[in-house]
């Protein structure tokens, strides 16, 4: 009965709702002003003051395009509903406003920065949304699943509560499995002075150990001097970066780089993950004071590119089904790896069918930026909020594509949900899946 009278107090998310229930006007005001006045600076102000409300950013956003061009989902529209009122009222906004801001900043923006290349002034709305998330973090109203992930990072230095022994045990198990196929294969642990430290994200040991197997097979076949750490610092992912917990974001990044420094490797190679890449070259490193990653980080795409280009890895028989290639935001728009990705795709597949738009202009998967990590309560938000992606995929399929390569974990999972919901009928693979399947094995 009471619920009927207050229709906008529908349950949103346990973490947001509980956090918001504890707020007082003073707390809200203090948190907003602490972030906007003391933690941000020229950038924040310039972005807000330069925006002339032209709306040219709208068409960049997959949420906007997928929601019948509802302006509430346009990038600047999200700023209007979050940053503007907070600034205008100098932090004196109510708890319900914070609740809606948490929903918008955390679940209706993937921080994909596509809008930054649509804005004539280059206004970085993803940055503004991150600052809203920072406020939400300070107010303790982060979505439950994402907050839990941040807790896992803080306690275990990995994303999924993987314990010290479970991590090593999984590597040894995969090594043992792989020896059935490659009798002398090793996953070398703690080898000081190896050329490369290979790091992954926690879902790999937790659910997708075959990805570690595949990479071990690739490393073994290509004769790479590599190692994996047997201590914390093996996980390169960083969801605290998306929960607004910058302190933990930095702590995780430090553990990762410290581990690589301790192992005296020259480079870190990381698996097919997007946000982890962003956390090392863009956000986490900067929070720690590193202008660039102190130890170069090579994304799997670039690593495969090197191995194929140099002939260290050879393809026995190309993958036959026509593939289409999804450019993840954090590795293409974020790090310019799209041409290398095409080289790799051409080397390992018979036929590559481009989806449109592509490269830097590709649509986001709607899972990245921590959105999929907000969990089941928001699955529909991102699946229904990315109809445009389904249309893009249907188009690629109509031109022959049968398989989609998505070299990013978040994209992979998000696209899986989209393909399933809209019945697109595309198989989704990592580059590593295809390389492992098609490479010459000794």
């Amino acid at each position, binding site marked *: 009965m009471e619920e009927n009278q207050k229709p906008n107090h529908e349950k949103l998310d346990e973490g947001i709702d509980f956090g918001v229930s504890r707020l007082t006007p003073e707390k809200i005001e203090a948190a907003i002003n602490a972030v906007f006045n003391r933690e941000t600076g020229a950038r924040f102000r310039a972005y807000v003051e330069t925006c002339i409300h032209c709306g040219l950013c709208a068409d960049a956003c997959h949420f906007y395009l997928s929601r019948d061009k509802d302006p509430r989902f346009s990038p600047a529209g999200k700023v209007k509903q979050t940053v503007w009122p907070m600034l205008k009222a100098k932090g004196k906004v109510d708890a319900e406003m914070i609740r809606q801001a948490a929903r918008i900043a955390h679940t209706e923006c993937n921080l994909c920065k596509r809008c930054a290349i649509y804005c004539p002034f280059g206004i970085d709305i993803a940055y503004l949304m991150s600052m809203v998330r920072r406020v939400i973090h300070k107010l*303790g109203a982060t979505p439950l699943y994402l907050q839990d992930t941040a*807790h896992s990072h803080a*306690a275990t*230095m990995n994303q999924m509560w993987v*314990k*010290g022994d479970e991590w090593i045990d999984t590597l040894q198990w995969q090594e043992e499995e792989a020896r059935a196929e490659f009798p002398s294969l090793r996953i070398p642990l703690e080898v000081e002075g190896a050329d490369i430290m290979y790091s992954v994200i926690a879902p790999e040991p937790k659910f997708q150990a075959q990805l570690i197997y595949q990479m071990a097979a690739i490393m073994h076949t290509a004769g790479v001097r590599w190692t994996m750490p047997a201590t914390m610092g093996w996980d390169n992912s960083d969801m605290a970066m998306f929960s607004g917990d910058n302190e933990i974001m930095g702590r995780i990044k430090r553990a990762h780089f410290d581990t690589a420094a301790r192992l005296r490797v*020259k480079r870190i190679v990381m698996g097919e993950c997007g946000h982890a890449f962003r956390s090392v070259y863009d956000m986490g490193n900067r929070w720690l004071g590193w202008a660039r990653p102190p*130890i170069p980080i090579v994304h799997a795409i670039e690593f495969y590119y090197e191995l194929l280009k140099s002939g260290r890895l050879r393809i026995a028989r190309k993958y036959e089904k026509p593939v289409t290639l999804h450019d993840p935001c954090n590795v293409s728009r974020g790090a310019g790896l799209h041409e290398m990705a095409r080289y790799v795709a051409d080397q390992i597949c018979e036929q590559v069918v481009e989806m449109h738009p592509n490269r830097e202009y590709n649509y986001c998967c709607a899972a990245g930026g921590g959105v999929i990590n907000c969990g089941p309560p928001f699955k529909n938000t991102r699946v229904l909020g990315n109809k445009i992606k389904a249309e893009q995929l249907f188009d690629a399929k109509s031109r022959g594509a049968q398989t989609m390569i998505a070299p990013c974990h978040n994209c992979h999972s998000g696209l899986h949900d989209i393909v399933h919901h809209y019945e697109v009928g595309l198989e989704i693979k990592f580059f590593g899946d295809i390389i492992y399947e098609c490479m010459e094995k000794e």
Partner: protein
Amino acid sequence: MVEGKSRDWTTEEKTVDIGTWKERFEWVEELQASPDGETVAAIVNTGEETFNVCVNGQTWEKDFDKIWHLRFTPEGRPYALVADMDQWTVAVAGTPWAEAFDYAWQPVVSARGDHIAVSVQQGGRYAIAIDGAKWENDFADIGHWVSSASGTRSAAVVQVRAADSGQVHRFQEGTYTIAVDGQAWDNVFVNVWQPAFSPDERQVAAEVRLDLYRYTIAVDGRPWGKTYGGIWAPCFHPHTAHVVAPVRQAGKWYMVQDGEIIWQKPFVQLWQQQFSTDGDRLAAICAPRFGRWTVAVDGEPWRNTFNAMVTDLTFSPDGRRIAALAKQDAHWHVVVDDQVWRNVFDMAWPPVFSSDGANVAAKVEREGRYTFVVNDRFRGQPCDMAWDPCFSDDGDALLLRYVQDGVYHRRIVPLTDI
């Protein structure tokens, strides 16, 4: 510390032929050399699913199902983590501990080499085991564990209250603390990291997070009165009970002692602080401005800064000199008292001082080959493998350990030759 005096400083060269090992075994893993240089060892595969350790050509008596983490104790005994029938333990010089566990990892050896401690998992519960003896209490999770210098005590971050994944607010009430020798502190915290023992081994300090936003140091479970926006690992003064740690305030890092700022100058980053042995000087790795790294000594940064990173801060034994490794772009440098060596390297290992602090040596890598550098001059030919050099106690000679053309060499080189 193990005394260098007992070592053989007279025999100019000893060798072990390791070239034949590859023929004797299916495969040979990474070689390890003992600190005194007398022994070289490697994990070897002796058949399908059987492993052993080959020490100077001799294998241990018994094979194991799995072996990893082969290292040497400071006084030269090889030890490794070994498993039989999925039960893990530590084997020292071929002899496994009587106790075995569902899992054992991350062994740490005391400074004299007489104790080995390892974290263990038994039935899904976690503890530390020293020389096989497990803590009486076990815990739901364990991490960041350390052993005291004597090796008789151990401390670790442990989870003492259950909070299932997803119970975020319960987690935020605090579930973690420190256990010392298995005894948990009374207080719980949201997070605890990096415990450190006091020099007398009676106290333990650690980084704690009181809620999602407030960080401080707790000593024996009692947090400092002040809290900060961020914190890094604490360390004790070698002769007093004072604890120093870098803290973050208003976006900048400061060095504090027992909660009071002792370095007035703020830094963009500040960590890995270290006292000289006499406790008179405190140095740390710092970023005096964004993207530039160096060493700060008693609050003053060195003049030379580097764009990638600075690591391996090392005091000379007498505390008068400080060396560190610094990375500029892709190249590593050795820096001693703010003087940058002319030679650059693809990789460098921690600088080693002679006991009087007059000489500095390091193992380095160039173009995939290893060699030694002493006081910025290359010593010897590039070789296939090498270990850290070591000065004799009188500082007259250097012990070099390396592998070239399938032969392990232990060489004593008079410093006058360098």
